[in-house]
């Protein structure tokens, strides 16, 4: 690996920290809200790191900056020790990148796409076959089909194959599971786990909160700001309040009633349940909630103390972060 004096200014050792981003900011147009503001994160070697946030949070912008496609307004970043601005050429031959949109040639067949991308990276499908075999076996029956005629899940698999074809040490996957059905999504995550075991460092972004637990560490992002970076269990473990799941026969009336109760700090629907936190109170919270619900004539009321999910944490962080704006609190 190329040694460079600038390393000294960056604390982590690039040898086992292939992705280092420090204070990255980026605006597309003056006057509009920045796409990224002061984003810093590191990904360790062999880590499966998830960037989790909704559309427009800045995920793609960060990916493009880290893959040398875009210049940040400020801040610096290194991939495998190479600077994303100066050493873009070295980075381009070491990383694998799967953009958010399906970006393969729809008018070429599966086989032709693979051959092309292999050649582009100066290698051949046969030499790299071991790495992609698991994934390729699944699309092999369709190898003479045009990529445009594949299903969503198959397209993602082909795109992953193409991104892996040159055996990259770092893999960037921008929303690989968006718009793909549950079954294909699961298969895709299983593939990522396998790749991780082969020592590939993976940065993956997703809008689906439930996929967070499949990552080693995650960063929650909204409106261009990181809300938190940690392991999924650490993030849910540090949820600052007791969380209760409540349900009753009429869930929407219950939601409205709980929201109008001054004891309630937050109340959000989670499937058939409502997740509720209370303000400062005395006595057993579960009993309090049950009493209130009974007073409002609710039937079949159940209240449980539960462990928060990533989505609970995300909502909590997004709504309590003083820097977060633009999330309308209506209605």
């Amino acid at each position, binding site marked *: 690996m190329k040694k460079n004096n600038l390393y000294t200014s960056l604390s982590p050792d690039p040898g086992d920290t292939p992705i280092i981003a420090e204070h990255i900011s980026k605006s597309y147009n003056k006057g509009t809200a920045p796409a990224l503001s002061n984003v810093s994160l590191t990904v360790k070697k062999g880590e499966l790191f998830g960037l989790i946030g909704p559309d427009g949070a800045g995920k793609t912008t960060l990916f*493009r900056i880290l*893959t*040398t*496609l*875009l*210049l940040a307004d400020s801040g610096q970043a290194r991939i495998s020790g190479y600077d994303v601005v100066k050493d*873009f*050429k070295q980075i*381009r*031959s070491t*990383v694998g*990148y799967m*953009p*958010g*949109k*399906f*970006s*393969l*040639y*729809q*008018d*070429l067949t599966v086989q*032709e796409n693979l*051959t*092309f*991308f292999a*050649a*582009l*990276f*100066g290698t051949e499908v046969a030499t790299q076959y071991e790495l992609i075999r698991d994934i390729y076996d699944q699309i092999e029956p369709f190898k003479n089909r045009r990529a445009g005629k594949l299903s969503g899940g198959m397209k993602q698999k082909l795109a992953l194959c*193409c*991104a892996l074809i040159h055996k990259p040490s770092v893999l960037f996957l921008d929303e690989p599971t968006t718009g793909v059905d549950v079954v294909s999504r699961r298969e895709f995550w299983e593939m990522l786990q396998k790749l991780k075991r082969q020592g590939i460092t993976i940065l993956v972004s997703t809008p689906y909160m439930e996929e967070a637990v499949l990552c080693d560490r995650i960063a929650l992002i909204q409106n261009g700001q990181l809300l938190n970076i940690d392991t999924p269990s650490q993030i849910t473990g540090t949820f600052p309040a007791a969380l209760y799941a409540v349900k009753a026969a009429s869930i929407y009336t219950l939601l409205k009633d709980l929201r109008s109760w001054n004891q309630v700090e937050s109340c959000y629907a989670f499937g058939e349940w409502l997740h509720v936190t209370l303000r400062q109170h005395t006595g057993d919270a579960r009993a309090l909630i049950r009493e209130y619900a009974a007073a409002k004539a609710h039937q079949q009321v159940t209240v449980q103390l539960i462990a928060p999910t990533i989505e609970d944490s995300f909502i909590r962080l997004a709504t309590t972060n003083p820097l977060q704006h633009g999330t309308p609190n209506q209605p």
Partner: protein
Amino acid sequence: MKQLLVFIRKEFYHVFRDRRTLLILFGLPLVQILLFGYALTSEVKNVDLVVINTSGDLLAQQLTARLQASALFNVQEKQLSPTEIENEFKKGHIKAALIFPSGFSNDLIKIQRAGFQVLTDGSEPNISKTITRYLSTIVQDFRQEHSTAALAPFTIVPELRMLYNEEGNGSINFVPGVLALILMIVCTALTSVAVVREKETGTMEILLVSPFRPAMVLVAKAVPFLLLSLANFSVILLLAVYVLNVPLAGSLLLLFVITLLFIATSLSFGLLISNATSSQQVALLISMMGLMLPTIIFTGFIFPLENMPLPFQWISNLVPAKWYYSAVKSVMLKGLGLAYVWKEMSVLCLMTILLLTITVKRFQIRLT
């Protein structure tokens, strides 16, 4: 090098799998050549012709009778003033006018020499030429018949004038024009669209995040269209020479070199457009409006440049196709050599260098 070859192969896949591209590549030259070659030089029949025989001259009447006997002309005899004649032309009522001077017979008998005036509508040069040709034949016949009779041998001198297009651009001039047009479409429009499509589908991102040198993307995009346009050039040339009997007077090698030069100019133009735009529609629109229209208007193969206002003539100098058209005409039709086309060739050279410089300077190795 292998990367580049694989890339170029991929470009050919794109071309041969896209019906629209194929149609433009192979349908368009055929249609244009046939359109210009046949539809626009179709046989002349029932041409409206007015005969002005103010003095009721006898021999003039005999000549008129011959014209009437021919299926080619719809002859009307009228007394019209020069202004009225012009109005008839403008309204499109007539395509030709024959004007006999008052002493036509007299001159013929006394000095064995007389003239009359033939006016034709030069905005349709093909028709004009045909009319003139037929008229001369008829006059020739007329003369021969009468020379055997009582009269002494005489000469009739038709004074020919084409209105609106004095020089009389002929039918064979369209071949260089079509060449310019087709090469421009293939090299500029198709190349720019091919590059921009990669931006639109997002594959450009992957190409950029690969060790493949970004500038080579442009090379890889240009090469297939260079080869395809050379194929097009050959097809058009063969069609022109063997189907339409257009002469190939000058050096084929020189013609080839000039064409290669023009292809280079057009490709640079296409790459510059693809550089500045990010949607296929915009790229196509710029290619069409910005290049095709000027090519049609300012090269001179449809509208004679000499008749345009001066500012337009200056603008025409900026259109690469004008120089190509002029050079091809010189070499192909007039059989002239390098000494006569070096000016056109240097202009094309300069344009190519300029365009390529801008393109390379502007070229982005990142997204914007």
